[in-house]
C-alpha cells in the first residue's frame, strides 16, 4: 500500500502579524491527520513559539524570511522552522526553562519548554551568524 504522505513549505516575512498565519496554516495542514482539539492547540502553541523566536531573537526584529516546512509520514507530523539570523550561541542554555536574553521585554523564557512539552521531539540546529532550524515531531491521533 502507498504511504500516506504530504508536504508543504511556507515562506513569510518575519512580522509578528505572521505568527498567526504560521500557526493557522500548520493547524490546517494537520487536520488531514484527523487530530484532536488538544493536539491542534499543542501544535499551534509550539509553532507560535518557534516563529516568535525567529522574529525576536533570530532576526532581532529586522524583516527577513522565515521558512516553515511541514510534512507527515503516516500519522507522524514533522515541523521544521528556519531563520537565517544570528544563530544561538549556547543551545543548551537557550532551552533551559526561564532562561531569556530579553527579560526587560517581558519574555518569559518558556518558549523551548513549551515546544518540548507539546511536541514529542524537539531538536535545534544552529550556527552563530548563519541561523537556526527547529525540528519538531509529533504523532497525531494516538
Amino acid at each position, binding site marked *: 500500500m502507498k504511504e500516506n504522505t504530504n508536504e508543504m513549505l511556507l515562506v513569510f516575512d518575519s512580522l*509578528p502579524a505572521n*505568527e*498567526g498565519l504560521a500557526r493557522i496554516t500548520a493547524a490546517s495542514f494537520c487536520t488531514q491527520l484527523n487530530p484532536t482539539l488538544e493536539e491542534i492547540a499543542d501544535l499551534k502553541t509550539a509553532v*507560535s513559539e518557534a516563529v516568535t523566536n525567529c522574529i525576536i531573537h533570530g532576526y532581532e526584529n529586522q524583516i527577513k524570511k522565515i521558512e516553515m516546512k511541514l510534512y507527515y509520514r503516516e500519522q507522524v507530523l514533522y515541523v521544521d522552522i528556519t531563520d537565517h539570523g544570528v544563530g544561538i550561541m549556547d543551545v543548551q542554555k537557550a532551552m533551559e526553562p526561564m532562561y531569556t536574553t530579553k527579560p526587560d521585554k*517581558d*519574555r518569559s523564557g*518558556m*518558549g523551548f519548554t513549551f515546544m518540548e512539552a507539546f511536541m514529542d521531539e524537539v531538536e535545534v540546529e544552529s550556527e552563530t551568524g548563519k541561523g537556526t532550524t527547529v525540528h519538531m515531531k509529533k504523532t497525531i491521533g494516538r
Partner: protein
Amino acid sequence: MKEMFKLEGTTLVILVPEELDHPVSDWIRKEAEKLAGRTYIRTIVFDFSQTQFMDSSGVGLLMGRYRSLGMRKGCIQATGVSSHIDRLLHLSGLHRYIEIHRAEEEEKP
C-alpha cells in the same frame, strides 16, 4: 463590543481577546502601562473567558505585570481559564504566584 480595559476602583480588569500571542501581548502591556501611569492600580484581573489560544508571550505578559505590581500575593488574577491555558500557567510555574479561577463548565464539583 465589550470594553477590553475596565477600571473598578483600584482593580484593572482586562478582557483578553481570543488569541493572546506575541503582538497582542505587546499591545496589552503598552495599554496597561499607560493606564498605570494615570491611576493607581493595585490588582489586575485577566479575564480569559473568550481566549482560545495563548503561548509563552502571554505568560511573559502576566509575569511582567506581577513584577510591576510589586509581586504581592493575589495582585494578579486569571479568571475563566480553559484547560489548555491552565496547562501553560502550570508548566511555567506561574500558578504559584497568581490566583487562577478555571472556566465554570470545567470546574470540578
